[in-house]
Structure formats: structure tokens, C-alpha cells
């Protein structure tokens, strides 16, 4: 059942240490082999010719409309899991279908089918066409593939990696977790991979295709000490090649999962109240996703429902604050080569030197505002129509040193890790749940903290960012998901260490004197 539109961010895991933005040297050949694999897939496998696409698009425009588009998708998903020491479960699936959309102004007609037959597609196109009520238009006669760069090339397809290659990885993580500490009592390890092939054909002559990998290795650890149990988890992944999953990565994963579980025995829920909050680098970028990201999605703004609707051009933060939403970061989970409407991906500035510069646009919003779309039109699958979504949302590095930021706080908290967040974009009120962190007392990190909800207001929080360090890190995992209007898409985030001078900490006791 489709759910009520809420600006939720669902479960995400935790960023690794390690510098972000370090580009790897990649040999040139991969570009050709990955490119060669993808165009023509739907034609050779399912007979989807250009002529057929034109026919279906014409049907979608049979009552007029500004444009129509077809979104073909073939997705293979696999999951293999270890529980109680055995790799004894695997699940998977194949999903195939096409979504057909007709757009007229800000109105959308939509239908989809899992049968890629002419008859079935024409019926879905007819459903979509019903949103308009004018005279028929026709689709373009010529289709051009835009020049698309590849931010996640594959030298071999994930669907060619057998189950037997994944088993040893999963087992190694399990063995390592138990070896790291005798407090560990339960370990779960899973390896997920997904390979999504898409073909987008739009009636104004754009034809774009892509192969999107999405994969991660995940471990959850329960530790027991003095009759108490604590649990934590970690994952590494993104849009990786299978060769990314080395024994080093497996060992690092075990390290992170175990150490994060064990520290919780010393952690407390912090006191409640307003206080300065230092955010450590990496996954804490969820803060930006909730505090400003959703509020900058153009559909909310053209409907006037976002608190940022009248703030373009205004100063919203100090001049050292620069916030980006980018679809072109190599291997990052939120990266896309082309969006789900056929617009080539890009880097979009949200806040430049403290000034709010631009929204995230799909085609409908771009037309409304008379600007170019920003490559932000995304959809969960062929079963949904696209809407403005984020990709990789992060803040550029500043000049301060992270140690100086911590030293500057007399009494507050340091946030290392968040599990989830949510925002009400009209008020700008957001919340995120802290799963790992520390108290800060007299400029030093002291007791570990856990399990506390932190709240704030987007525009107020931006104004209250008073220090930004030079240590930008991006999330290094594969489980980041954003939910909006009942659709989920993979996203990523990043942040340098920064100080927000006041936020509301939902701790457990009334803040003492």
C-alpha cells in the first residue's frame, strides 16, 4: 500500500574512516566494456525497438500533453546471509517492467506493465494518456543518446558472480568478529547485490540507458557483558565492483561492527536540553539531508509547502558554508549517470558561500521555474513516476581543525553516528537519532553516548553552524535509503567536522544546573 507522503529517511549505516574525495586511478578500458554491455539490452532481449517505443509514446500522447516517457527496467537482486555460523540462506529476484508517463503542466498520468508486449504497453500508455484531454501529439522521430559519463563502471557484471564467490567473504567476517572479542555472542553477516538496467525513452527525442550496481556487505554483532547485551552494525559498499570486496574490507567491517557494539557498554543517554553539538565527519551528513535537502526539492517549493520556498538568493548561513547535492561522485551510493527522466547527472549547488542558490529540479519543476532540470528526477522503480530526489548531499570542507572545534565546546555532545532521521519540510523541523557519540566536557570528549533523538529547525540550524573543519568525509556504505511519497531511493551523504552552536537533545533527565 502506498503510504502517506512523509519526508523520512530510513535506515542507513555508518561511514568508514578514511579520506573522502581520493580518486582512484582507473584504467581506460573499462569505459568501453561497460558501455558496450548496456545499450541494446532491451532490444536484443525483449524486442524493444525504436519503432515500438515511438508507437507507445504516440499512444501516451494521444490526448496531447507536454511530453511522455518510457522507463524500462530489468533488475536482478541477490542476498546471501550467515546466521549462527552458517551461510544457510539466500534470496533473490528478478523484476522486469516498463513505466509509461504522460505529463501536462504539473499533471501526470501513469501506468506500468510487467509484460513487455506491444498490447500491454499500449494499454498502459492509454491509462497515462487519460491525464490530458486535448488533441493528439506525436513523439519525435529521431532519438539521440546524450553523452553520459560513467561514475560506477563494471568490468564484469554482478549477475555473473556466483554464489560460491560470495560465501567465503561472509564467512570471513563472521570468523573475524568472534575472534576480535570474547564478548561477542551473535553475528549476522549478509551480502547484498543488485544490478539494475534501465532504458529511458522520452518523446522529445532523448534515449538514455544505464547499468546501476548497488551492493554492500553488512554485519550485525551482539555482545554480552555482565548480563547486559548491546548490538551494533556496520556496512561497506555503494556502487562497487565485486573486486572491491577484499579480505581487507572484510576485516575492517568486523573491526567496526565489534568495536561499535562494545563501546555501548560504557555509553549513556545524555541529559536533555539545548546545547552545542559537534558533528563528526561522514554519515552525519544525514543532518544536511534532513535540515535542508528535502526542503530544497523543487516540487515542495513550487507548491509553496517548503520553508525554503521564498529564500532563494537569501543568506541562510555563514560564508564558509557550502552545501552540494551531487550525482557524480565516483562509486557513491547516491550517484547516477543519468536520472530517471533521461537528464544527464550533475553537481548542483544548494548553498554557495552561505547564500541559498538553487533547488533540485525534475522536468516538471524545471519548466515551472523556467530553468534547466538538475538531473534530480528519480524513481524507486518502473512502478513509480519520478519526483525530485537527492543524490549525494554534503558540505564542502572549511578551514578549521577538528580538534579546535571540539576544544571550543565547554559542555555539549559529539555525534559520531546516526541511524535515521526525519523532517517536516513546511516547518523545517527535523530530527535524527544518534547511535554513537560522546559527551564533551571542558573541550574534551568524555563518556560515550547512545540512543538519543536530536532535534532542530533547518534554517535555524544553518545559521548556527559556526565552525567547519577541513576533514570532509563521505559515507562509505550501501544501505542509505531515502523515503518520500511512498518511494525509496538510494542516497549518500558527507560532512566535515562542524559545530552547531545549539540544538535540542532529547536525553533522559532534566538538564541539571
Amino acid at each position, binding site marked *: *500500500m*502506498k503510504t*502517506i507522503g512523509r519526508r523520512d529517511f530510513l535506515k542507513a549505516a555508518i561511514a568508514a574512516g578514511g579520506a573522502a574525495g581520493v580518486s582512484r586511478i582507473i584504467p581506460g578500458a573499462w569505459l568501453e566494456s561497460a558501455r558496450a554491455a548496456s545499450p541494446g539490452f532491451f532490444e536484443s532481449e525483449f524486442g524493444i525497438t525504436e519503432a515500438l517505443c515511438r508507437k507507445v509514446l504516440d499512444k501516451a500522447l494521444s490526448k496531447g500533453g507536454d511530453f511522455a516517457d518510457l522507463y524500462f527496467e530489468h533488475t536482478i537482486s541477490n542476498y546471501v546471509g550467515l546466521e549462527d555460523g*552458517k*551461510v*544457510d*540462506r*539466500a*534470496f*533473490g*529476484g*528478478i*523484476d522486469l517492467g516498463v513505466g509509461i508517463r504522460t505529463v501536462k503542466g*504539473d*499533471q*501526470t*498520468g*501513469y501506468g506500468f506493465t*510487467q509484460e513487455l508486449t506491444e498490447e500491454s504497453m499500449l494499454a*498502459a500508455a492509454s*491509462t497515462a494518456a*487519460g491525464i490530458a484531454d486535448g488533441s493528439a501529439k506525436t513523439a519525435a522521430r529521431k532519438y539521440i543518446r546524450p553523452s553520459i559519463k560513467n561514475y560506477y563502471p563494471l568490468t564484469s557484471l554482478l549477475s555473473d558472480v556466483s*554464489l560460491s564467490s560470495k*560465501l567465503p567473504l561472509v564467512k570471513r567476517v563472521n570468523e573475524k568478529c568472534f575472534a576480535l572479542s570474547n564478548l561477542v555472542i*551473535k553475528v549476522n553477516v549478509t551480502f547484498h547485490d543488485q544490478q539494475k538496467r534501465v532504458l529511458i525513452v522520452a518523446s522529445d527525442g532523448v534515449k538514455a540507458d544505464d547499468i546501476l550496481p548497488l551492493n554492500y556487505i553488512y554485519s550485525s554483532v*551482539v555482545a554480552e557483558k555482565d548480563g547486559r*547485551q548491546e*548490538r551494533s552494525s556496520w556496512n561497506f559498499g555503494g556502487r562497487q565492483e565485486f573486486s572491491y570486496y577484499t579480505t581487507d574490507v572484510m576485516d575492517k567491517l568486523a573491526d567496526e561492527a565489534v568495536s561499535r557494539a562494545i563501546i555501548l557498554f560504557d555509553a549513556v*543517554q545524555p541529559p*536533555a536540553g539545548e546545547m552545542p553539538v559537534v558533528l563528526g565527519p561522514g554519515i552525519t551528513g544525514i543532518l544536511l539531508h534532513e535540515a535542508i535537502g528535502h526542503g530544497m526539492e523543487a516540487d515542495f517549493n513550487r*507548491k*509553496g*509547502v*517548503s*520553508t525554503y*520556498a521564498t529564500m532563494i538568493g537569501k543568506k541562510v548561513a555563514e560564508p564558509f558554508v557550502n552545501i552540494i547535492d551531487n550525482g557524480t561522485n565516483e562509486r557513491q551510493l547516491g550517484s547516477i549517470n543519468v536520472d530517471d527522466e533521461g537528464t544527464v547527472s550533475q553537481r548542483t549547488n544548494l548553498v554557495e558561500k552561505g547564500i541559498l542558490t538553487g533547488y533540485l529540479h525534475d522536468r516538471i519543476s524545471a519548466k515551472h521555474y523556467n530553468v534547466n532540470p538538475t538531473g534530480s528526477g528519480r524513481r524507486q522503480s518502473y512502478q513509480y*513516476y519520478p519526483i525530485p530526489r537527492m543524490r549525494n548531499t554534503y558540505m564542502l570542507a572549511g578551514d578549521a581543525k577538528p580538534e579546535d572545534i571540539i576544544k571550543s565546546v565547554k559542555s555539549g555532545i559529539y555525534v559520531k553516528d546516526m541511524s535515521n*532521521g*526525519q523532517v517536516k*519540510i*513546511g*516547518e*523545517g523541523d*527535523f*530530527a*535524527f*537519532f544518534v*547511535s554513537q557519540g560522546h559527551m564533551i566536557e571542558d573541550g574534551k570528549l568524555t563518556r560515550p553516548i*547512545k*540512543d538519543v*533523538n536530536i*532535534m*532542530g*529547525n533547518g534554517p535555524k540550524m544553518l545559521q548556527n553552524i559556526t565552525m567547519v573543519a577541513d576533514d570532509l568525509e563521505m559515507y562509505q556504505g550501501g544501505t542509505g535509503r531515502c523515503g518520500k511519497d511512498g518511494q525509496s531511493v538510494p542516497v549518500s551523504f558527507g560532512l566535515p567536522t562542524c559545530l552547531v552552536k545549539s540544538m*535540542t*537533545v*532529547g*536525553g*533522559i533527565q*532534566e538538564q541539571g544546573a
Partner: protein
Amino acid sequence: MIMSKEMIDTCEMVLKTAKEAGAADCRVAFNKSRYVEVKYRERKPENVSEAATRSINIEIFVDGRYSGQGTSDLRKEALKSFVSDTVKSARLLEQDPYRSLPDPKYYKGRTKTDLQILDPGYNSITQEERHAMAKELEDACLTAGGDKVISVSTQVYDVFNEETILTSNGFSGEIQSSVCFTFAEMTAQDEGDRRPNGYNYAVGRGYTKLPSCSDIGKEAASRTMDLMGGKKITTETLPIIVENRNVGSVLSGFISAMSGTALQQKRSFLLDKKGEKLGSDIFTLIDEPHIIGGLGSRPYDGDGFATKKLSMIEKGVLNEYFIDWYRSRKLGIEPTTGGASNLVLPPGKRSVAEIMKDLGRGILINGFIGGNSNSNTGDFSIGITGKLFDKGKFTQNVAEMNIAGNHIEFWNKLSEAANDPWTYSSLRTPSLVFTDVVVSGI
């Protein structure tokens, strides 16, 4: 509506193919579904969608190994190779001695009552009616919102589902179901750049079982007004009333710790607490699978067990966990059922208004934001919005405040259930009163 023979025939073919490929056992589930959605904004359709899906999911048990796969490609030859490929790849896994199809004795005794999971009126819904409902929702919301309205959106959505499940050890089940949903949301102009967004909705098996669209639209506007001027106040210990429709946001942290998976994998704060009193006498939760038209109603559960009423928690005492077949084997205990059907917390006698007058000062919580619950420790922290009342009357709206606690203690503060059970959910709870809760703010 009569189910077509096609689905049973396809499932039988899948079972046969699995056996021929060497599987010892197999479960196959064939699902077909059709949905229709109409959204309105600015007095015209904003989105109109309609589509149908189908999928086959199989679970294979071969050589003591287990695997599951799903596909939407139902062409006969594609299905056959899908099944044999799944059997082949299952053989690559390690053995799991606890995996098997359930003992068929649990399949027996299925209720014969028509639970009206498919609403009798479903088939006669027309597209014109859907548009009329969306318009009525919108008109009512716009009228009630008046000059405070920045934007109103409405949605009418329904889905029809057919399911056939067969297993190689004699289970056979067929269900047709419908779910209908009406929704209205409004964004209002508050002070400065604040634009509170409120909404209202109803869900049920049929549109005729829901409140009128004009009532829903009108209340969406009033719930939006309840967010205007929301501010945080100083931290205070006081009673809270959690609105019936929002109880799940707090209760879900307790319920998820009752699952067999959480218990067996040692991530539950309820481990070894069966039989203990963990809440007040008001804290009773009954799993009721046979409520006519209930959103969680079902004749059989995910394992195929014939469903029956279960007292999960009674007057604060934890009676049962949610144990499915697999976890029952791993834990070495009797299974109950893998998950909740309709969960009922019995209502009390007084209305929320009467309770407020009695309490004097407190906060009625009408929304939650963010937050989470630690399933190992029971600690939780969650943001709230609400309406502060004093001397029994509402004085101001609050926002950016938080409640935090631990489930082991929290449900002892449950002092009363109001007389207003929320039936537009499979979690059917009335508004609940908790005393001495720290609500943190300034």
C-alpha cells in the same frame, strides 16, 4: 469473486518442476495485484495512475538446504528454468537442520468465517467515483482551511490482491483482498517562514467503511491548525495523552522485541521475560485475526498456520512472543504465530476530553518525529508535537520537544485507555494516558 483456476494450475506446475529438479519440499506463492490512484491539487487531477502486477515467490528445501527466489516473468519456459536454477543454487549453501516446511498439523482448523478481507462493494467502484471522492476531500479541506491555506493535496487509492499458496506438504490457500485509502493534507501559512503541514486519512477494506470524504478533508484542515505556532516549552514532568492513531510509534519498539528472530538472535530486551509483569493493568494486547473486515485479518498466517486469537500481553504480564515455525525450531519451543494480525488494546470508558478535564495539565501528543528504539536495551527517544492543556483546556501548540525512556519502565506509567479505538489500522489502540513523563524542551 471467484478465483481463476489459472493461479492454482501455475502453482501446481511450479511444485512439480521443483520436485523434478530434486527439491525435497517447496512452497510457492503466486500474487496478483491491481491498484488505482487519483490525486488532486488546485482543483484538478495532479496524478492518475493504474497498473497491475504479478509475481511468483518460491522457497526451496533441498538436501537440507534452503533458498528463496521471486520473479515477475511468468512465461511458462522462463518459470521452469527459474525454478530449476533456484534448486541448483540452493545446493551451494550450507545445511540448516532447522529449516523445513511446518508440521501440517498446524494447518488444520482454519476458520470458515468470511472475514470480508475482500470488501463486498469493491468491484463496483468506478473511476468517476474516485475522482468525485478526491474532489470532495479537497473541497472540504479548502473550505475549512480558508485563508490560511497555502496548498491542499488529496489522494484516493485502492488495491485489489489475489494470492494462491501451495506447499508440497499439503497446504493450500487462496485469498482475495482489497484495501482502500483516502487522504487529505494541507499546508498553512504560519508566522515567518513556517508552513505547518497536517493531514488526515482513513484506510479500510472498502470505501463505504470509511468516514465521509468531507469529514476527512475537514479534519485535515483542523489537524493542520493544531500545528500552528508550535513552540517548545521548558522541560517538564507531566501526564501525556498519546493520540490513538499515533500509539504505534511508541508501541512498535516493544512489539518488535517480541519477535522470534529478535529473541533467538539475542537482540531483544524481552528475552527470558515471559510471564513477567512489564506494564500496568491497562497494558493488554490481544492478537485477533478474525475481526470482520479488519486490516490485519487472515485465515492463515505466513507459515500457513490456522489463525486463532492470542493473548500476547494481559494486564501488563507478557504471555506470549511472536514465534514463527523456523524460530520455534531454533529455540526448541512451541510456535505461536510469526507476526501480529490485528493487535487490539482494549478501550476504556472515558473520552479524551473527560480525561483532560480530570488531569488538569498535560500534553496531548498528535505527532512524532524521528526517534528510534534500541531493541537490546529497550531505551527509546522520540520527538513529539502536541497540544498543551491546562485546567482541562488547550492553551498552546508545542513542537521540537522530546520524550525518552525505557520500555521496561514506560508501560508501567500507562494509567488509562480512552474510549476511542483507532480502527483504520491493524494496530487498533485507543488514546493512551501516561503519567509522570519527562517531556524535554528548553
